[in-house]
């Protein structure tokens, strides 16, 4: 069955939910890609998102993989356009209008109001993901370790993800 129309529908919808970052759309992405369309499993979604943190560029490029699995190379391209198109058009239009809005008093209100909501969405996405990613002492230890190191030192996050892969191998390899 041709999945491309469904891919375009789902990812253009997810696109407009990414207020404050890609993670804001994660709870909805889980419902639509895993539960509704069954393009992949929840552990696979978590794995792809996490591996994506090691890739350069925008940190949601893992969506390409969902498109690829569901609809081949065309699916991958469709997902990219659907996910980045709507917000790109919006950003473009706002860029044009922004100068005129400079003295609009609500501009600051919108920015200040959306800040706590977007951080809340990020945290909600984090909890959704933690339900699948944190089980037991080792994984909790890795998450807390990464958090503390990042708050304390200036380390490249991609390196910490890589180091955690090594810790994962050491902890979870069957002896």
């Amino acid at each position, binding site marked *: 069955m041709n999945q491309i129309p469904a891919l375009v529908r789902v990812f253009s919808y997810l696109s407009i*939910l*990414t207020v404050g970052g890609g993670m*804001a*759309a994660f*709870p*909805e992405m889980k419902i639509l890609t895993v539960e509704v369309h069954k393009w992949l499993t929840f552990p696979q979604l978590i*794995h792809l998102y*996490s*591996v994506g*943190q*090691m890739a*350069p*560029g*925008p*940190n*949601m*490029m893992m969506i390409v*993989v969902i498109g690829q699995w569901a609809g081949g190379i065309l699916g*991958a391209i469709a997902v*990219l356009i659907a996910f*980045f198109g709507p*917000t*790109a058009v*919006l*950003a*473009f239009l706002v860029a044009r209008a922004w100068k005129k809005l400079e003295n609009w*008093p*609500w501009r600051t*209100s*919108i920015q*200040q*109001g*959306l*800040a*706590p*909501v*977007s*951080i809340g*969405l990020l*945290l909600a996405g*984090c909890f959704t*993901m933690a339900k699948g*990613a*944190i089980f037991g002492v080792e*994984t909790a230890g*890795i*998450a807390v370790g*990464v*958090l503390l190191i*990042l*708050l304390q030192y200036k380390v490249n*996050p*991609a390196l910490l*993800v890589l180091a955690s892969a090594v*810790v*994962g*191998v050491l*902890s*979870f*390899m069957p002896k």
Partner: protein
Amino acid sequence: MTDTASKPAVQPGKTAAKAAAVSIWQIFLEFLIIGATSFGGVVPYLRGSLVTKRQWIDDKEFVEMLSISQSLPGLNATNMAVLVGEKLRGVMGSIAGLLGICLPGGLLMFAVGIFYHHHGDHVWITAALKGVAAAAVGLILATVVSLSKKSLSGKFDFVFMAMTVIAVNRLHLGVPRTLVAVGILAILFHRPRKHQKESAAQ
């Protein structure tokens, strides 16, 4: 990369002159480089490239564009590509920037997808992925903490944040409804006031 670091600071007006001469191809290429090298977060790479190395925008513009990017839906990286591209060369500049920044990571993840599909159930790969997924949770938490420090002011902002989390994770209202409901509430709370008496507000 380092050869530009020793250059003297630009004279006023030089930034504008440089920006006027930028071609679509140069925009694409610069964002392609950022897209291929920005491991662990795009923003510092954007600044290093666009402000320091190329001087296409100045620091004030960069901060302004970043704050626009953050309050719009969309990822910071792609919104910045669109905003900077638009400033330099209009529609075609935006498209060039967007394509450039997405292409390397997209191709890499495409390859990862194929590899994972065939070898994802290998014992040592599943073990490594468990570590990687746990690290990603820590990473997001660290982002939450640093963003909260930077952009939350007053205890009500924490209330709005908590309401958002509860609405999505506990009440399962879904992201769109939560975004609209709590968003409007928070924007109204931060509504423009004549005398800016923030502390007296209820």
